[in-house]
């Protein structure tokens, strides 16, 4: 095996694992869009605020990890419910730009609250996972990425099951499909909207713990949110398998682009390549790989 091929494999494996973790964050976006047709431009900020909460619980209050993680997840679930009740419910039926701007405004609020409440400095978010990479042939696999990938797969599978088999999941799909008919069938639509936001909160909390461990916790953790859009556009805005596949594609493309193009242009390809891919996807297949094909055309 030549060195070049080894390098390629290394980029691939890294990209796949990172891609799975993008999938986890994109899942939060997809859950909300699937159930409520609302878009969450604050997904990255959800992840950030959850990461800050957990890191603060670990670092300042010296809570054990299980308690800190539980606290973070519980807080984000409560936050999701509260947010839907106070803000998003009032915007139902308004034009797209209203919801987009409301979540952008929310993102701004969260960016302000995080450093004000917990300090502006970067915090570590230590997990009991070894730092030593696992070496397999030419591959170096950091254990945290492996754990992150596994957690992502677990949750993606779990939510997949939830939507297909469980009573609540089926009700949620009915709400997503047609709100009026769902209401006529006796489904409490607003409760399911709240539930969708709470589920997004939970997924974001997990994303915050994993990503916070990898890149540290401060305001910049929210930049992970910028990766969500290429992922969900590629996979389809309302598709859970799409979040995985989109995540994998974005992870692969950005790693390979960064590995082969960065040396010539001086860095930054990682943030750039997924968006080029996304533009192409929007032109060719705007509803994504798995998305429902009813996208309003002009």
């Amino acid at each position, binding site marked *: 095996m030549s060195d070049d091929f080894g390098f390629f494999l290394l980029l691939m494996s890294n990209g796949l694992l990172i891609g799975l973790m993008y999938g986890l964050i994109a899942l939060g976006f997809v859950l909300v869009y699937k159930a409520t047709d609302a878009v969450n431009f604050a997904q990255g900020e959800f992840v950030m605020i959850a990461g800050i909460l957990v890191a603060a619980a670990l670092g300042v209050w010296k809570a054990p990890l299980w308690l800190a993680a539980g606290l973070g997840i519980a807080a984000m679930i409560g936050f999701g419910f509260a947010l839907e009740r106070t803000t998003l419910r009032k*915007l139902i039926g308004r034009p*797209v730009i209203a919801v987009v701007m409301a979540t*952008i*405004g929310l993102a*701004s609020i969260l960016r302000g609250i995080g450093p004000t409440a917990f300090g502006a400095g970067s915090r570590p978010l230590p997990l009991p996972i070894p730092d030593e990479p696992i070496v397999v042939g030419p591959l170096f696999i950091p254990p945290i990425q492996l754990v992150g990938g596994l957690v992502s797969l677990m949750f993606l599978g779990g939510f997949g099951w939830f939507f297909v088999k469980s009573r609540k999941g089926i009700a949620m799909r009915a709400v997503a499909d047609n709100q009026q008919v769902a209401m006529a069938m006796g489904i409490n639509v607003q409760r399911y909207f709240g539930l969708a936001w709470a589920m997004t909160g939970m997924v974001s909390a997990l994303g915050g713990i994993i990503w916070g461990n990898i890149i540290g916790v401060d305001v910049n953790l929210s930049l992970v949110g910028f990766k969500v*859009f290429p992922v969900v*556009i590629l996979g389809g805005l309302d598709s859970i398998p799409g979040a995985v596949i989109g995540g994998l594609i974005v992870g692969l493309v950005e790693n390979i682009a960064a590995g082969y193009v960065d040396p010539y242009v001086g860095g930054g390809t990682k943030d750039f390549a997924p968006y080029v891919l996304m533009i192409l996807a929007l*032109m060719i297949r705007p509803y994504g790989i798995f998305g429902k094909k009813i996208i309003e055309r*002009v």
Partner: protein
Amino acid sequence: MIHRECGVLKTTYEADMGLYPLPIAKWTVGIIAGLFFAVIPLTLHEYYLSIANLVWIAVIGALGLNILVGYTGQVSIGHGAFMSVGAYTAANLATRLDSPWPVNLLAGGLMAAAVGAVVGIPSLRIKGLYLAIATLAGQLIIEWTINHVTFISGGVQASIEVPRPRLGSMVLSSQRDMYYFLLVFVVLAIVGTMNLVRSRVGRAFIAIRDQDIAAEIIGIDIFRYKLLAFAISSFYAGMTGVLYTYFLGIANYEQFQIGVSIDYLAMIIIGGLGSVLGSIFGAIFVTLLPIVIRLSMEAFGGMFLPQQVVLNLIPNLRLMMFGALIVFFLIVEPDGLNRLWRNIRSYFRIWPFAY
């Protein structure tokens, strides 16, 4: 604007479309013009004039964005990038060719219009949320390209120094000079927008916003008018970028990042979508917000909190207030400050008699 209207009876369409609903409106406009052209620049201190200049620049950008979002109904999260296109076009022309500012201004606007029309192409296939994400991609791609192509930006994280604009032999260096310089373009932008939206083109824009399929059926070429809306709006954005560059004296890509696109969207949401006066109100409001927060925190924050805490709090407070205001206006007053203004006016229209 501030006069009380009474006995308005229009019998022709021309009268209904007129810029001045009543003869007295000319007086009102004259008084406001006098205030801004004579009283404010001659009485205010240079520091306050520099704030006024920032407001003027924002007004032009907000008007442009409102043409696209408010009148045509196409969302754009890429206006910061269009501004940077204008700014770098002008900066490169000024430093490489030593061209005068009118040429740079026009070239910057036209270049931004061209780029904006290209970014707007997806709007022919997709709309709403998908278009918002496509323009977001446009923003990030343009940002990255400008930052990484040395020919444009002079290298990663570099900035280009731009010479001050000159009129004949006079160099516009003080804030007062800049004030007049900018005010001319603000007037042009306001009059241009008001005339645009009541013309054939503007009515086509509004038809597309309200119901695009119906608009197509009554014979509006959607392809042409959507791209035209993107181009005109980006032209304003490009001009804004050039003027901002002349105001700062340097072109730097950090002045035009995604936060700027969001600021301008906030301006038109807070001010009022689809309204010229709303764009002006919103631009004033959003530009002054961080300044007022900083000044009031510096003045009063020290009474309750230690100095260091106050300094850390200011930027975060700005973010929180900004976000909270966007959400507040969206929920409570979707038509923005313009609607509040109209409510005040219609209250005083019949004052002091009860309805």
